[in-house]
């Protein structure tokens, strides 16, 4: 007889592991996570490790705010044996054009409406928050002191450990090769080892979500796009907040470990599964970082890497049910999946179990692309 499960989750990133935790906590007995490589080997473990609430769409700002509350007590909630390294030293978002400044004003009004403690500061105020910031050409900035950083590997491990304690199974180095669908209903999952019978499959495969979707006969509007990052040698704490400039396409933070993580967005990056590191990226990010934060020129780069954003057409996630009964999707996070995972995974668990979710997610369902109801997120770097 084939092996059976109540829910199979495809993808052992933060979303898959957090979902497994919430489902197991809600009493689902046989939750199985299948991961092609090892935990956090995809987008989660390659992300910039930032946690921000300063978003331009209400839903993202709300998801991020609720997720921050969960990051704050995650070590205790998940009874983690380590520390997820959550640090709340803020995010400083810089505006260099009037159009950006106008957008920031709208964003701040929206965020303040959600009680997110964000303020607008002038260039002098920005310099007080980051003394080594080059304010030439800066119009203004927005600052939220409760934004911050968490360690993506450890957050994923914390969720995975907690899920396992509650009875979930997590199998790494197991690749999904097919989805069994009969008459529009999910029946099982085929892996490189066996076939598993299950009535529920959740696609948390990140940039590979479209490949998994096709196995179930669905075309998901999610595509892979390489983003690169680098990390420097560790130094004494000198920069509290993450600094983002959409104009310079740069994000740059100092982690609790002391190293700086930074990346630039390349607007010409084509759709592909390429995760190779490039020399061009190093030069590009170095120029932007040294311009904006001049003392960083003395820091040595120790490592660079590439990873994939799972992009969606409106830069917002595709969440919830699909036209294949029992097949759910959580993908298209467009570079901000890690930071909203704590709340998003909880809502997803509620939707999978047919409960009333704490936030309605119809707007984020796959259906929206058929109707043209985009929920554009303007603040992606």
């Amino acid at each position, binding site marked *: 007889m084939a092996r059976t499960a109540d829910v199979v989750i495809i993808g052992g990133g933060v979303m898959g592991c957090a979902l497994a935790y919430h489902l197991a906590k809600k009493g689902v007995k046989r939750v199985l996570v299948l991961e092609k490589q*090892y*935990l956090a080997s995809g987008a989660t473990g390659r992300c910039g490790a930032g946690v921000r609430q300063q978003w331009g769409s209400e839903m993202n700002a709300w998801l991020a705010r609720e997720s921050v509350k969960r990051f704050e007590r995650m070590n205790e909630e998940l009874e983690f044996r380590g520390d997820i390294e959550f640090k709340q030293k803020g995010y400083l978002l810089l505006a260099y054009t009037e159009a950006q400044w106008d957008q920031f004003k709208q964003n701040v009004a929206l965020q303040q409406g959600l009680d997110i403690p964000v303020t607008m500061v002038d260039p002098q105020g920005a310099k007080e928050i980051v003394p080594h910031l080059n304010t030439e050409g800066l119009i203004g900035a927005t600052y939220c002191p409760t934004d911050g950083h968490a360690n993506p590997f450890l957050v994923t491990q914390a969720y995975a450990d907690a899920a396992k304690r509650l009875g979930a199974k997590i199998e790494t180095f197991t690749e999904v090769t097919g989805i069994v669908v009969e008459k529009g209903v999910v029946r099982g999952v085929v892996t490189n080892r066996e076939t598993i019978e299950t009535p529920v499959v959740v696609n948390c495969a990140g940039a590979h979500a479209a490949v998994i979707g096709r196995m179930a006969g669905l075309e998901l509007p999610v595509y892979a796009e390489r983003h690169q990052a680098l990390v420097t040698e560790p130094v004494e704490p000198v920069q509290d907040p993450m600094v983002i400039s959409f104009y310079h396409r740069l994000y740059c933070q100092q982690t609790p470990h002391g190293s700086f993580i930074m990346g630039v967005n390349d607007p010409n990056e084509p759709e592909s599964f390429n995760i190779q590191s490039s020399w061009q990226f190093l030069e590009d990010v*170095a120029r932007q970082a040294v*311009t904006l934060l001049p003392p960083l020129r*003395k820091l040595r*780069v*120790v*490592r660079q890497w590439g990873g994939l954003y799972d992009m969606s057409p409106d830069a917002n996630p595709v969440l919830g049910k699909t036209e294949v009964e029992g097949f759910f999707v959580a993908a298209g996070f467009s570079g901000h999946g890690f930071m909203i995972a704590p709340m998003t995974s909880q809502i997803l668990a509620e939707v999978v179990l047919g409960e009333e979710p704490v936030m309605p997610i119809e707007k984020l369902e796959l259906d929206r692309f058929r109707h043209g109801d985009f929920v554009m997120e303007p603040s992606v770097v």
Partner: protein
Amino acid sequence: MDDRTIICRCEDLTLGEIRELIARGFHTIDEIKRISRAGMGQCQGRTCRMLIAEEIAKVTGQSLEEIMMPTFRPPAKGIKLGILAGGGGYDG
């Protein structure tokens, strides 16, 4: 070598700590690197990589050749951001 021997000098990790991670089920260098930072420091694993591989091999019964090496990431040697930015000078 005993459990107090430093295996990763950059991140100050002992053999005992590495052995504990292997015992917990982390059986690849990549997983150990991500969970403990072993190999993420200045030397990028040049010291610890093979020592960790040997410990994994002992526990899993694999031969050293079967232990999957982590990705070797650029730059091969630390380079200052100022030099990459074209600022010139080796002490920029």
